């Protein structure tokens, strides 16, 4: 076991030495920011390390790293969009409000979690679910908004919930 772990370490080291510069450069072009690129490149290797995969089996290391880095990049953009949306929403409040940094972080994290959970749902299904759970809208109101029947809204609701149910684990 110890030798296997050491072998893994060596392979990762090799992967890092051979491709880190290339990955960093690619991320820098995507982000236009050295610091962020360095962070995301680091995250990419951490992700590789945490995946329980036989590294010798990686035939195309750059394609592999590229796939992982792209996923992280999309998450990064999405997080920035959500943070931005949160700021916009704050700015639109009728009274100037400055929630504590903790509560801001909590809301943004919750938004991200829900976003990740609903990401793969069809747009209408996701919208129906959000209108109900986030905005407390009735099925009639959702149906009117989406231009579908209330029965369809009910179907969407159960489809969305089934999707979420399959994603979460029991405590």
């Amino acid at each position, binding site marked *: 076991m110890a030798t296997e772990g050491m072998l893994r370490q060596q392979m990762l080291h090799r992967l890092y030495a051979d491709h880190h510069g290339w990955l960093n450069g690619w991320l820098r072009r995507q982000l236009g920011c050295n610091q962020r690129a360095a962070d995301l490149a680091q995250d990419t290797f951490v992700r590789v390390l945490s995946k329980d995969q036989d590294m010798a089996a990686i035939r195309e290391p750059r394609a592999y790293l590229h796939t992982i880095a792209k996923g992280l990049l999309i998450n990064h953009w999405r997080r920035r969009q959500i943070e931005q949306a949160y700021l916009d929403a704050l700015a639109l409040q009728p009274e100037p409000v400055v929630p504590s940094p903790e509560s801001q972080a909590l809301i943004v994290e919750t938004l991200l979690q829900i976003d990740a959970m609903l990401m793969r749902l069809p747009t209408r299904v996701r919208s129906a679910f959000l209108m109900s759970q986030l905005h407390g809208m009735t099925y009639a109101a959702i149906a009117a908004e989406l231009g579908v029947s209330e029965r369809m809204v009910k179907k969407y609701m159960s489809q969305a919930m089934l999707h979420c*149910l399959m994603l979460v684990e029991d405590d």
Partner: protein
Amino acid sequence: MGIDYRVLQEAAKWFAVLQSGSASRAEHQAWSAWLEQPEHARAWARIERISGQFQPLAADPVGRSAGGLLHSRRSNRRQALKMLSVLCGGTALSLASGHIPWRQWTADERTAVGEVRDVKLADGSNLWLNTDTALDIAFDTKTRRLTLYRGELLIEAPASRRARPLLVTSREGRLYSEQAARFSVRQDDGRTRVSVFAGIVDIQLDGFGITSIPAGQQTAFGSRGVEPLEAASAEHQAWTTGVLLADNQRLEDFLAELSRYRHGYLGCDPRIADLRVVGAFPLADTERVLDALAATLPVRIERRMAWWVSLEPAIERAGV
């Protein structure tokens, strides 16, 4: 331990039925029976956890409004760049701890079920939003316009210094006021209700011309025109102070009002529907209101689940 796919499917269906808010008693009983199996209960616990994830957002107006973004698909890099003003350095959120940029008055206001909120408008007006309300505010140089989509508002507007009339649009028609006024507008199904407490409010209805409502009067209007005026009742402004007023109201009607402030089903047995309710009740705690009813009327509360509360006669006939 995994849960059978078929059970998850059933659970999701029950969720959709119960969440509709119009589940029948028979459906509720069938659900209760279904829930008795341990695996079903485990699936339901998952549902409550998922649904609970929305709570911190739904309770926070900023979070709710930011949640609008979640309706859209995840975007590509170009869209992301277009939207983001800051890309490098610390996270965007650190900006918020300093100052909040002040925007034009083009806001989308919403309240959650059970929430009552007041808003100070740019012209010095006070606006209250009752439970489960959605409206747009659009002030420009010519008019001050509110569009009520759902729920109930009360506005207390000073006389306009720049002769900008105040317009409130509902689904059925328009309300118009040029002087200082205080009035409430409620969007019901197919009907708009208006109660005027100060000033004069004109109802403009296509095909029915203009009807003026003076202070102290209330009415409703819809596709068949404006209903006869009657004395404005205090309950239509008491909610702004967090009070639900009942002046000799039928229990069934009172519960229908109370249920606007809470999620789920709230109803009563037909045998007690005509009992009368009198009093002032705190809107912030609808459970306490129910307890107060049980303490003063010959009724008992049947809590079948968090979303399902029914008031029953206090003494069930034996053997039925």
